[in-house]
């Protein structure tokens, strides 16, 4: 309820800002919606959204899985941390553009290159976050699990994951947004479809309503996923907290 209210407020703010600034500076929601509807009718919106979502899902899954594993390792083992740290800092601070260009040069303008480049860009932020999570793990629960001879899978599911959950949630949310930002660059530089491609075109034409229509389409998808899947799940998973916000 409150969420809907806030959402309405957001639209209203936008609308007021657009009216004040003039539609050249910020097109009002109606114009953007019209642009989106036109693209949806022609089918282009779904085509590009689909292509982008597929890339996002693949790169996100890949980098979260690998990043979490590496981050856990580096948080737990001093040796792994020492060894991995310089690589991590390098990867963290390599501009997306560079990684993408190099990936394309090496592997060609292929889907694999694009997804690998995006995953490599997101990987280090997942590592960094999960490393902190692994460092903050409660050793007393480890000991409990060891005494009662929990098998690995049970430790992972019942001891580690619940402790890492907030870190995973943070890495996933900010990571998804990062992946999405980078997928756009990758599409801009070397893919013949996807939202990033269309945003590039819209930018070259300086068609701001179209730019916003494509940009917001992804935000809309995430908004729906959050409301329908993620947040109910989170609520369930954090029931045990006495004071959940």
């Amino acid at each position: 309820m409150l969420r809907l209210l806030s959402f309405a407020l957001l639209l209203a703010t936008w609308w007021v800002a657009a009216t004040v600034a003039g539609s050249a500076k910020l097109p009002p929601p109606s114009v953007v919606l019209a642009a989106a509807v036109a693209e949806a009718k022609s089918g282009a919106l779904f085509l590009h959204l689909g292509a982008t979502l597929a890339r996002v899902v693949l790169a996100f899954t890949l980098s979260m899985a690998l990043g979490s594993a590496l981050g856990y390792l580096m948080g737990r083992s001093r040796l792994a941390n020492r060894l991995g740290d310089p690589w991590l800092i390098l990867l963290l601070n390599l501009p997306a553009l560079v990684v993408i260009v190099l990936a394309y040069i090496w592997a060609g303008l292929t889907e694999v290159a694009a997804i690998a480049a995006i995953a490599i860009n997101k990987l280090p932020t997942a590592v960094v976050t999960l490393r902190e999570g692994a460092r903050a793990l409660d050793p007393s629960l480890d000991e409990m699990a060891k005494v009662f001879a929990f098998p690995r899978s049970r430790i992972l599911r019942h001891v580690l994951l619940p402790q890492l959950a907030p870190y995973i949630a943070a890495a996933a949310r900010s990571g998804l947004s990062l992946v999405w930002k980078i997928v756009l660059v990758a599409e801009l530089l070397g893919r013949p479809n996807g939202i990033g491609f269309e945003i590039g075109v819209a930018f070259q034409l300086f068609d701001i309503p179209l730019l916003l229509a494509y940009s917001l389409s992804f935000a809309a998808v995430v908004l729906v996923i959050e409301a329908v899947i993620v947040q109910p799940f989170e609520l369930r998973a954090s029931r045990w907290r006495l004071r959940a916000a």
Partner: protein
Amino acid sequence: MRLEVDIRSKSFTSANGKRQEVIGGIAFALQRGEVGVVVGPSGCGKSTMLRILAGLDSDYQGHVARPDGARLAMVFQEPRLLPWRSVEDNVRLAAPDVTDDRLAAIFGVLELDAHRTHFPGELSLGLARRVALARAFAVEPDFLILDEPLASLDDALAARLRDEIAMLVASRPMITLLVTHSMDDAVRLGDRIFLLSARPARLLHAVPIEVPRAQRSNDAVAAIKADLARRDFSMS
């Protein structure tokens, strides 16, 4: 199956860099079916010793032979429950093979029936400690380590649970090691009482209790306690 303990020395280096000896020499052995009770001043090194015996710490001087292939259960000094799992899940995760009947029996004895679906954060400390006991009982261990299992419980309940522990010990041939600050518990449950010095912990006396556990009436217990007190072990 036998537990042999010979810890010559155990030290900790604390974060401020100082090294501190915590155990100065403890050696004993326990047979299957025996209950050892460890008594010693607060902070002397009892929990540290238990952690070594449970295989959680291997950084010490000496040698410990833990019973081979024995199923271990431990009641830590704090409850150490998984906060994100219900009471029942906490027990079942440690003892996946426990039958529903046995679980019901354990929860009955520990008066936890009303709390099965609660999360640990919704329990009082006494309840949480009882869940930790339930977990250890449900495992049906061969080697049971109890670190002050009956603290924070009212006298009536503590007495009932002490009897329950005695029954468990009688029902299966296992090695039991109990830390307590209550001489009453020590005398009622133990086959041998290990008296430790203040830090660094040394084994001062290992006092056997000759009266069989089943025959320790209130009077017998009082007599043994008086005897122990008369011997006036200097414990610090």
